[in-house]
């Protein structure tokens, strides 16, 4: 190699190296999603990933963030496997290089939260409701109401309808435990009596025994905490066993209506509320685009994860505008606290409270002819 060639190579190498140091832009902004793509409850993975992917597609169609595209990288937690979730989280961070992750399910969020905390990766949960995810990591944020908020909403609704004795049924999981504890606290806090709290394993062959014990406790109302499809199965069993009490759920999907059939009539659902309205053009745009792409109207899970991607995109934009090595979990979190308010697909804005939770509107719905009819907003505080 001649001296001239060597010099040229050194100059080129130096230019490339310094260029790389100055340009902190990645080729693509990868956002991780840890969803229930398989296992007992793949419905959630389907709608959450669909919502998130739609947001990514929309942002990319508008040129991405200053020309850099977003990419959603999905890992499957198999409907709540902490082991699968931890492996997925490590892969997202170590292999894919994500700086922000959208976890789902309480168990999964709790299992992956320490990794996000340790590796300084921002996490925005739009599905799990466990209060244990609140205030334990500076990198952990929630954009849905927590179990305590929804439990309080249900307790108030049942009490205002005249119930004095409440019974509960839940899956044996972090989510189930958290919900039972929060409801008991809210209910007994009003001086009312909790008469039963039955739980079953997620893969239980049937729940006849649990329902029989609920019935024997002679409650005025039942708080039905299982998720899809066991929520529908529990209602079906209760009605088949002659239980005519008011039933309140934290969520209810089309799958539950299918399982419960005619027995779904009259069930009330107290949950985060997403509805497309004329007053909120973004919600209409989102709902129309979702229906056009996936053939069904979005539920609040789809809306939460759609919104989660928009929040992350906005944070990247804000961090980038400040310059420097902006693409890191720390900088995204810093950008959030500099201004914790974001446009919301639910209408107006969402604001993260000091505990990292951006509470959503909590509403009461009543199932009539297979449809969830809005009844009223209730307190989730």
């Amino acid at each position, binding site marked *: 190699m001649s001296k001239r060639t060597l010099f040229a190579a050194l100059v080129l190498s130096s230019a490339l190296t310094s260029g790389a140091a100055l340009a902190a832009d990645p080729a693509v902004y990868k956002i991780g999603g840890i969803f229930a793509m*398989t296992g007992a409850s793949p419905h959630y993975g389907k709608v959450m990933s669909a919502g998130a992917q739609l947001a990514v597609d929309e942002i990319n169609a508008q040129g991405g963030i200053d020309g850099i595209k977003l990419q959603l990288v999905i890992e499957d937690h198999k409907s709540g496997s902490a082991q699968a979730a931890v492996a997925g989280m490590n892969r997202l961070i170590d292999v894919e290089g994500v700086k922000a992750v959208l976890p789902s399910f309480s168990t999964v969020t709790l299992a992956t939260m320490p990794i996000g905390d340790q590796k300084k990766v921002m996490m925005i949960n739009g599905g799990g409701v466990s209060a244990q995810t609140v205030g334990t990591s500076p990198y952990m944020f929630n954009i849905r109401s927590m179990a305590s908020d929804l439990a309080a909403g249900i307790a108030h609704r049942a009490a205002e309808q005249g119930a004095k004795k409440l019974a509960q049924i839940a899956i044996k999981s972090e989510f189930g435990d958290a919900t039972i504890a929060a409801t008991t606290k809210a209910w007994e806090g009003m001086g009312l009596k909790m008469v039963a709290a*039955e739980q079953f394993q997620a893969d239980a*062959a049937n729940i006849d025994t649990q329902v029989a*014990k609920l019935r024997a406790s002679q409650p005025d109302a039942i708080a039905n905490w299982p998720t899809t499809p066991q929520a529908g199965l529990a209602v079906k069993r209760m009605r*088949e066993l*002659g239980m005519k009490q008011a039933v309140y759920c934290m969520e209810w999907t089309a799958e539950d209506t299918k*399982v419960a059939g005619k027995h779904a009539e009259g069930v009330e659902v107290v949950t985060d509320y997403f509805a497309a309205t004329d007053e909120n053009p973004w919600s209409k745009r989102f709902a129309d685009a979702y229906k056009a792409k996936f053939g069904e109207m979005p539920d609040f899970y789809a809306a939460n994860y759609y919104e989660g991607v928009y929040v992350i995109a906005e944070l990247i934009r804000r961090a980038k505008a400040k310059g420097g090595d902006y693409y890191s979990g720390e900088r995204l979190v810093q950008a959030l606290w500099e201004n914790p308010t974001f446009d919301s697909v639910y209408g107006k804005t969402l604001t993260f409270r000091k505990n990292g939770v951006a509470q959503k509107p909590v509403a009461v719905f009543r199932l009539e002819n297979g449809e969830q009819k809005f009844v009223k907003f209730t307190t989730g505080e």
Partner: protein
Amino acid sequence: MDLLIQLTLNGLFNGAHFALLAMGFALIFGTTGVVHFAYGPVYAVGAYAIWALAALVGLPFWAAVLLGIAFTAALGVGCYLFIYRPFEISGSPPFVVLVASLGLFIVMKNLIGIVFGTGVKTVDSVAYDVHFVGNAFFTTVQLGQVAAALLVGCGIALFLRASRYGKAIRAMADNREMATVIGIDTTRLSILVFALGSAVSAVAGALVLLRDGLNPNMGFGAVFVAFVAVIVGGVGSLRGAVIAAFLLAFVQSLGMWQIPTEWQNTIVFVVLFGFLLARPSGIVRRA
């Protein structure tokens, strides 16, 4: 008292369901020695086939059940001929067959999700009634589970005792090598028990379709309870498997009378451990 009656009834109905599953599994395991974990997804596929024939094709439910049973029997035979039989021919040790069975379990379970989707499947065309015993309730479908367990159980017992093939199956279950020596075609019998056992699982699947609906993961619970029932009942004893199935169901149900229901699945393992320690050969000891 009302609760106790209800829990007893629940135990009876769940016991009938478990017994159907255990009989099918026991026939296959007891005769061939194959720990057929894919029995779970075979049962699930059979139930899905019945759903597809009734809900998609629009056949009357009884016709869908008959065709579904035939399909499930053929699927069971396919599992034997294309998965287990090659290992038998090559003289592979039992643990290799066990691993193959687990692999087949996973493949079939995932295929159910891919082919049928992951949502719950139900049949709306069949209505059923609710009946009362004092303050306790049960449905026509649950009665059907008891009737099916009785009919299938008696049918299999009669077949094993009175027919030439049945006697040959018993001989093979007792001593496969000796059965071969005296001229029994063990391959043909293996095909027969895989067909019979799988067909029995389809009967259970049809009733669960009406009672709870179907999901791709339903096979795990089924093969789990069938396996435990066969071990607790005594490997090779159909009667033992049925007794154990009812025992498990009653323990699961009545055991929850005073214990929190979250322990329901755990208690099955407690029974299993207890039996393995106290009576390793199971409830019914073979001579």
